[in-house]
Structures are given as C-alpha cells and as structure tokens.
C-alpha cells in the first residue's frame, strides 16, 4: 500500500493544526492568511508571499459562539466563529472570507464586531456562471490585491501571481494522483482525506514535497481490495468520522466528491495569458459548488466519476441547515440511484451522539449494498 508514515504525519498536522501552525510561524515568521472555503482564490494569498491557512469547523460543542449564533446555524460556520472567539487563530495576520454561502458570508460580520483581530476581508463571488461573472470576479481580485497592499503591506504582482498559480496547480495535480491511487486501491480513503485537509494547513511548497514523495512510491504499492467501494459526496468534509467508520466496516471511499477533495483539484488554472483573468475564470467555472447557478454540472461530474470508477454505493453527506447541498441532494440521489448506485443521506450538526447513529446507519447500508444492487433497485421501485 502507500507511505503510511507521511499520511499519518499529515493527519496529525491537521488534527493539531493550531499548535502546529503557531510553531511553524514562530520559526519562519512568514505571515499567515486564513481563508474559509475553497472558493477563496488562494493563489493571491500565496502571491503576496503569505501562507494560506484554511479554517475548518471542528466537531465539538461550541464554547462561545452560542452567544452569537443559535444552534440551528450551520455547524461548520458556527464552530469556525467559535474558534475565533476563543482565540485559537492568534497566529493569523488576516482572514479572507468569500461570499460563498449565506452563513459563511455572515461570519465576517461577527468577526469584525466581536473578534476584531486580525483584519478580515470579504470577497464577493458571483453565482451565475458567465463571462460577465468572470469579469466581475477579476475586478474583485484587483480589489483584494489592493486590500493586501493597503492593510497588510503585501504586494501582489502579475508575475508573483503566475508563480503562485504554478505552485497551486502542482498541488492540484498531486492530489489528483492520490485520488487516482484511491480508485486503484493504493491509497485509503482516510489517507486521501489526511492529504486533502492538510493541504489547507501546510505551506503549499512543503505540502507538494511531502506528497510528491508519496506519489513516487505509489506505483510500487500493492493493490488493496475492499468489499465495498463508495463515493462520498459532501460539502465541507472536515473530520475523519465518516471515512473512518466506512473503513471500520470494511469498506473504502474511493471517490471523494467534496470541497477539499476531488472538486478542489479536478482542474488546473491555465498558466498562459492574463493570470488575473485565469484565476477568475477558474473559480467561477470550475469550482462546481452547488452555491453556483450551473444546473446539472455537478451531477455531470458525479456521473463522470462513477462511469470511470466502479462503486458499490454512495454517501451523500451534508451539514445540517445547508440549503445549497440539501436542495441538490434530491437530484444527486435520483441521479445515482438511476445509475443503480444505492445512496444513503447523512446529515450532521456536529453533535457527538450522532457518531453512534452514523455507525448504525452505515452498518445497515453496508448490508443492503452487499446484498447487491439488484436488491436495492427492487427496494427503490
């Protein structure tokens, strides 16, 4: 199989990300700019010579956010705010919040009012996929660059942006290779997730080196076998609970259709031409997040994924109170079941007691899947 030690190291870095990042910063003094959600054009952060640090929710009972947001607010956003309120992001020099969805958009308001430092910037991202939207986002990128200069004293030039695009494209290519490794049984789903999540924490060049080392050994590895091969479709997939449970039950997630997974690496940014335009075009056209208006494109991606890699079932995993994903869940489930792929919907609000429920539901799902898709099709009729 794969290089377990590096994957384990990446998993530990992600799980201890606050302490790890603080320590790294104390060593190299390079500014850290936080970002929420893969809709953020991280190339600009890197082009400013800062290191992008992704902010994740964490499955826990919030300590302070309850005084600002009620319990039915998206747990991912709420728990990021909680970490900010209790001072876990002291190592950040700035935070970028994209206008990605209704609740993430509102985090910036609370951050400005009650966290206050470090400075926060909001970038508007259009919803309608069009040339007009690309032009609109390009304008927003210029504004964001101006803000970096004005607020942080960090300049972003076209040349530094081109270099940053190359570095992040390398990360994308490496993550794609790991994803291919999952499909071929050479990388476990939990290992892929460790790599995908740590990509938001470790400096891109460093992460590229670590993963390049793994990729070199992939061809030497043996093909693993798994009784149940699954597609995991989700928004934020910020903890290991689902994939660890699948593996405990003897299955494997071989297709990772979520924000930090395959969707974040499936396409490179074009390295020729105007780099500002190419970054804008990429984030508008290639992100395939349900918050965009692009009917059917994400479903096409899912169809393409399952047509090239056989799976026995699918998990549609959504955060509670996430309208964008929950609306698309209907069409997603219909699409997958139309292809004869049994699909289970799991929703989470980060409550600890859900872990056992999830185990039980997945266990039952495995029995159905192992009973054969014909049985499932009969049940669906």
């Amino acid at each position, binding site marked *: 199989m794969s290089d377990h030690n590096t994957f384990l190291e990446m998993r530990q870095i992600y799980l201890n990300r606050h302490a790890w990042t603080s320590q790294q910063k104390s060593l190299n003094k390079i500014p850290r700019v936080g970002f929420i959600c893969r809709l953020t054009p991280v190339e600009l952060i890197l082009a400013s010579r800062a290191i992008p640090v992704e902010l994740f929710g964490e499955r826990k009972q919030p300590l302070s956010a309850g*005084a600002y947001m009620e319990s039915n607010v998206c747990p991912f956003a709420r728990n990021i705010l909680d970490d900010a309120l209790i001072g876990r992001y002291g190592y950040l020099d700035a935070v970028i919040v994209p206008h990605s969805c209704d609740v993430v958009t509102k985090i910036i308001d609370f951050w400005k009012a009650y966290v206050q430092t470090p400075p926060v910037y909001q970038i508007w991202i259009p919803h309608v996929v069009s040339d007009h939207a690309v032009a609109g986002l390009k304008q927003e990128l210029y504004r964001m660059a101006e803000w970096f200069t004005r607020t942080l004293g960090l300049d972003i030039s076209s040349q530094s942006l081109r270099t940053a695009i190359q570095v992040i494209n390398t990360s994308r290519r490496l993550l794609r290779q790991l994803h291919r490794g999952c499909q071929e049984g050479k990388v476990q789903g939990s290992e892929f997730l460790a790599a995908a999540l740590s990509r938001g924490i470790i400096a891109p060049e460093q992460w590229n080196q670590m993963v390049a080392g793994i990729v070199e050994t992939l061809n030497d590895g043996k093909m693993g076998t798994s009784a149940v091969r699954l597609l995991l479709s989700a928004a934020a997939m910020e903890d290991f609970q689902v994939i660890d449970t699948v593996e405990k039950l003897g299955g494997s997630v071989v297709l990772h259709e979520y924000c930090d997974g395959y969707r974040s690496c499936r396409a490179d940014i074009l390295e020729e031409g105007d780099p500002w335009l190419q970054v804008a075009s990429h984030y508008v056209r290639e992100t395939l997040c349900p918050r965009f208006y692009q009917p059917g494109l994400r479903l096409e991606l899912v169809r393409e994924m399952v047509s090239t890699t056989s799976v026995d079932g699918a998990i549609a995993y959504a955060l509670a*109170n996430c309208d964008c994903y929950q609306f698309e869940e209907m069409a997603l489930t219909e699409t997958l079941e139309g292809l004869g792929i049994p699909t289970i919907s799991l929703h989470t609000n980060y409550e600890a007691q859900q872990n056992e429920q999830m185990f039980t539901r997945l266990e039952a799902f495995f029995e159905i899947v192992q009973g054969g898709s014909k049985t499932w099709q009969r049940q669906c009729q």
Partner: protein
Amino acid sequence: MATPMPVTTQLTRVKALEATRACGKLIKKFYQDAHEGKAQGKKVAWCGVRVPIELLYAMDVIPVFPEHFATYCAAKKVAVSLCERAESAGYSSDLCSYARCVIGHVLAGESIEAPAGGLPTADFFLVTTTTCDTRVKWFEEMARITGKPIHVLELPYGRDTFAGEDPLDSYYVEYHAREIENLIPFLEQQTGNRFNEKRFKEALRLSQEAHQLLLEVYELRKTVPCPMGSGDMFTDMFPNMYLCGTQAAVDFNRQLLVEVKSRVDSGTGVVNPEKFRLMWGNLPFWYNLGLFNYFDVFNGAIVIETSYYIPIPVDPNDPFRGMARKVLSNPGNCSLSSFSRLSKKFAMEYKVDGAVLAYNRSCRPLYAIQMGIQRFLEEEVGIPVVLLESDMADERNYSDAQVKTRLDALVEVIRAKKG
C-alpha cells in the same frame, strides 16, 4: 415572571386602515387577473423578490411571486400541509418554509387546495441572487421539476453599502444594470414580445411615484402616536413589492398616504393613549398577523419594521442603473452591520422603547444575524430586545404560550425602564 396587567386607563384601539382592507381585495384581484391572463395566453413568470418587475409589466408578462404565495398560504393555514407534501417527497424540513410550501404546491397540484386557486402554471422562472442562496436553489429546483426555463440575475452582495451612509458601490451598480439589460433578450425569446423603451420608462415613472408616496408614509409613521403600525404595513407592502410599475400601486399608496395623514392631523394613533413604541425585526409569522395587536391592551404599538424597506426609488432617467441602485439599497442584500445601522436609525427616528426580533428558523441569511442585531440594539442603542423563535410560514414551529410569555416579559422591562 408574572403576566403584566393591562393598563387601566381608557384604551381606544383603532381598527386597521381602510387601505389595508382594500389591499386584501387587491391581492385577490391580482391572483384572479393572473389566472385570467394565463387563460388568455399571456406568459406567466414565477419571480423571486427584487426581479425588475417594471420590465415585466412593460413587456406584458404576468409576474407571480412564490414567496408571496407562501405567505398567503400561511395566512390561510394551508402552508403546513404543503410543506409536509414536500417533506414526504424527500425535501429536508430544515429547508426554507417558503420553498417547501411552494414546492409542495407544485408537487401536490390540485390535490391540496391552495388559496386563490393556486399559482397559475409557470412558463418560466426568474430569480435574483439577492438576500439568500436558498432562493436560487429553490427556483432551480422548481425549474428542474417542471422542465421550464429559468433565468438568474446576479446581484452583487452589498457588503456595507446600505442606508446612505456609504455611497453604493458604482461597479456593483453597473454590474447589476447589465444583468437587467441582459434579461431583455430572454424575455423577448420567451414571450415573442419586443422590448418597448417608452413603456418601460412609463413603468419606471409609476414605480418611482409609488415609492415616493410610500416614503412619505414612512415619514408620517414617526409621529407620536403612531398612525400606522406594522400589522398594517405587512399587508400593505404587497403593492410595493409586487406591483411596482403599475398605476394600481400608485393609486393604492396615494389612498394610504391620505388616510395616514388624516390620522396624523387628528392625532389618532394605533392605540390611544400610546404608552410605548416597538420595532419589529425580520419577517412576520404570517399565520399569526394578529400578534401585532398583542400590545394593544398594554397601550403599546409596533410602529416600524425593518423588513421590506427600500430607501432609494428608481430613477426613470437612468433606467438600468436606476433599477440597480434601488435593488442594491435593499437591506436584505447587506451585512449584519448594515442591518444593525438600519435598526439603530429606525430605533432613534421612530423613538422606540424596545424591539421584537423574529428568529425564523428556516430563513438562513436573516436568522443568522438576529442575535447580532439583538446584541447591537441592547449594547449600542440601549433598548430591551426580545427574540421570538418560530418560523415565517411553518406554523409547527410556533408556540403561542412561549411567544406571549416572552412578549409579556418585554412589556415588564419596558414599563420598569420608563417608570
């Protein structure tokens, strides 16, 4: 806390405005006309809020509004049945209750009786990205279910540009103006009707006139005692949200202004004498608009609401940018700080003693900021605030006893504060 006793001074509760009663008839006529127009072969567009309907009226399209229809269903007590229909098809009960209600209506067809004969069948869908992502996904889903075309207009998120304290972002104004222009070829294709600039400008002129009349009404509502409460306004917002660009809206607002002015001239308030004044934040509970009268017995009135207020009327001389400016100034498109500033401005100008904020559990973008607004009003403005947890259309989340206990507590605090 014990229930506060009603005041013992003589109370005169003034009935709803005549204009509000007339509005009920206007709403019925709106739906009747829509069905008749559809039967005559006109195209029906199901529209989200802030779609440039002046353009639609100028192009002989019949706009109908799923959001309004959901409020209508809630008021007529059928929203829950329709939500349940959607939930039985697999839609999560976490989703926006307006969306569940109307999707339930689409799925149920005539099997669940809906008010006004239901919405006339859509020929196409129009929606903007203002306020929430949910609406776009909801309309996208309805287009998927029905197989009808949809056009989405992008409205840049307004950040902090509301309330005239900051100039509107000129790039965003240009951006949305182009989006409105780009709607014209879609409408021409769907309807076969050509765009007529003269008719469009006339619709904009009517929109501006109606809006200016409405802003005069807002000014008069600052009077003590308050001549028009939120209970009336949440009904009377109908022509101002859905009939912009028509003579009917102008006529309605003119009648409303005359009546409100008459009350001001005679010193007549919603309650007489008026002992305290409140502000309402967020969408009302449409199935229980009677709640706005709850404070009558305490001689209190809800005198202003932050929903549906738009500060900038359209400028007919600069049609597309003018429409974009109007829509971008809509507080629903803005941040917590913008909403907080609007709440503070209203609290001061309307001299309120407290605020009632609705925490509508399925309205994502608005509920996420309610606790922030509450803190802001308490800390920055120094007024007591109560947060009512329920939902705008799904009555299953409403508890009358809990709501009234909280309102009673608010009355106690205000009384103690006023001495």
